[in-house]
């Protein structure tokens, strides 16, 4: 994972300090040891940790999508969650037409890529010089997608086939649902595939160059605008994965990703908003934290999950605005 952040964690502007600091690594190691010891000591703790990791992986993949776009263009795509929701509905429609779940899954990903790239080319590119205009366009897109999806499929709950079955494994008295493990695996796997793409392919190199130094990249022949479109496409694909992995627990409804969007924001900020590895780690940490606090702190009932995530977001920004893996930025006047 260190190589991941070093490759992708490069900053566009002059930066001070390294992304991975010793205290942060120590903190994560300590947290991991705490979770392992707690899981060995208590079955409930172990179950909550695994479920939290599964949820956190979903937050992480949507956060990763946000980070991809933020790194390239320094804007936040407020429609990211709604795009994920829409692509999940597309997969649902494909299963209605007779495709098996996993076939629909893999057909949906390229569709999501094309849609994401199309959004960038047609809607974002014309206004990309003004950050506020981009934000407003994504907000408009949020409402538009909501309306279109509700119009086509209705607002009532829809159900897809359970992708991982309902098997529950028992290991030493602890019940792990196969679904949690599957969600965790798919989300982590998609992040790894993305990393491989960035590290080992020419497109990945071009995208890194376009994000890091757009002017220099275009001078050496990288088509920066295309790279931005590819970035949006990849973000939409990751979003589709997070939407499809959300479906088994939240089921299909137009509002399914709205809360997850806030969790993804918090996860991305926790990871430093610039760091892809940070987004994944931040998502996992937030998922486990919310589950454990819900289990062991009486006042933290499910209604307070969103406010707690908001407090995490706020505290991180106030105490350590660069998050776990972000880098300090030098501001020129």
């Amino acid at each position, binding site marked *: 994972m260190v190589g991941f952040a070093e490759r992708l964690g490069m900053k566009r502007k002059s930066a001070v300090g390294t992304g991975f600091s010793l205290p942060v690594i120590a903190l994560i190691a300590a947290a991991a040891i705490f979770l392992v010891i707690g899981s060995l000591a208590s079955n409930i703790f172990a179950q909550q940790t695994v479920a939290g990791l599964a949820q956190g992986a979903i937050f992480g993949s949507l956060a990763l999508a946000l980070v991809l776009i*933020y790194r390239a263009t*320094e*804007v*936040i795509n*407020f429609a990211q969650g709604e795009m994920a929701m829409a692509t999940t509905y597309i997969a649902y429609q494909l299963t209605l037409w007779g495709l098996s779940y996993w076939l629909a899954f893999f057909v949906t990903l390229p569709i999501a890529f094309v849609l994401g790239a199309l959004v960038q080319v047609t*809607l974002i590119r*014309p*206004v990309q*010089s*003004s*950050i*506020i*205009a981009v*934000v*407003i*366009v994504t*907000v*408009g*897109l*949020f*409402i*538009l*997608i*909501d*309306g*279109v999806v*509700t*119009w086509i499929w209705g*607002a009532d709950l829809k159900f897809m086939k359970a992708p991982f079955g309902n098997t529950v494994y028992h290991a030493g008295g602890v019940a792990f649902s196969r679904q949690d493990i599957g969600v965790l695996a798919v989300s982590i796997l998609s992040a790894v595939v993305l990393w491989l793409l960035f590290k080992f392919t020419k497109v990945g190199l071009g995208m890194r160059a376009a994000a890091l130094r757009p002017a220099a990249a275009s001078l050496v022949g990288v088509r920066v605008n295309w790279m931005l479109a590819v970035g949006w496409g990849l973000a939409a694909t990751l979003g589709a994965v997070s939407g499809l992995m959300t479906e088994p627990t939240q089921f299909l409804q137009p509002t399914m990703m*709205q*809360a997850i969007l*806030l969790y993804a*924001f*918090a996860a991305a*900020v926790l990871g430093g*908003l610039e760091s892809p590895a940070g987004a994944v780690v931040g998502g996992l940490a937030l998922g486990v934290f919310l589950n454990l606090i819900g289990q062991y702190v009486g006042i933290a*009932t499910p*209604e*307070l999950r*969103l*406010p707690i*995530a*908001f407090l995490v*977001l*706020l505290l991180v*920004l*106030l105490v350590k*605005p660069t998050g776990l893996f972000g880098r300090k930025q030098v501001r020129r*006047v």
Partner: protein
Amino acid sequence: MKFAAAGFAAAVVVLLGFLLDGYHQGLAVYVAIYFIAILGLDIVTGYTGQISIGHGGFMAIGGYTTAMLSHYEHWNLLLTLPASLAVTFLVGVLVGIPALRLSGVYLALVTFGFAVSIPQLPLKFSKLLGGSNGLHTAHSVTHLWLYVVSWSCAGVALLLAWLLLRGRTGRAFRAVRDSEVAAASSGVALPIYKTLAFGVSGALAGVAGSLLVLATNGFAQPSEFGVLLSLQILIGAAVAGLGSLWGVILGALFVGLLPSVSASFPVIGSAHGQDVVFGLAVIVIMLVLPNGVAGLLRRFEPSFKTAIKRDPNTS
């Protein structure tokens, strides 16, 4: 010129009060509510440069203040408005304090989180705040009462905003927006002006929220203060053109009337079709006019550039 326009607008509002039937008065009330909320957002985002996607949160707090004071204490509804103004002013100042250290995208995220979190609180404290069913005010009001009160509030809010923005405070706000470093080195106390802008902005949104509760038959419910409300207000401000008091009415008309206008057409008239039209309209407007309608008008205003040269503070 401006006074003539203001007088004309006031005359139109009074005249419409006599002409409109109950349904259209109800629509006009929503326009007034959006007007006040967008005005509030414009002060903090358009004039002071602090992006907020959280004004639905302030509206929720204002609305619940009115509902609680009426439900539990049987206050006169008119008197709950200043109370909600005061409460949301304080909340605005509190939100403004973390905003001192945040800017741009980070502030947008925090305010978005604020807007998402606030409607969860009535669900958590359902004994006091009524849960998802909401809280009902002790009295209800007529369309005419609401029309008169909401547009009076809108007028007072516009007057106060104008007075605030034309003088020293307004110059300080705009200096903060254009460059915080330059403003601070010119002696503008950033902490005071930024929190003040958030306070005033939140207070206006709070009053709008109180009026919204009265307009929905006196019900304060978490669902009426969802994310969409915050987004609509931001959209209204952006469509109007940030940093323009006169644009605010256009933004309010857009947000308040477009859904019901598109509802009168076949096919797109369904509830979801309205969202589609609304979202499309927002995107198209931003693509055609990135600076909003006010930006378009400004382009044709010849005196604008010379005004900058004459006095760098009043851009």
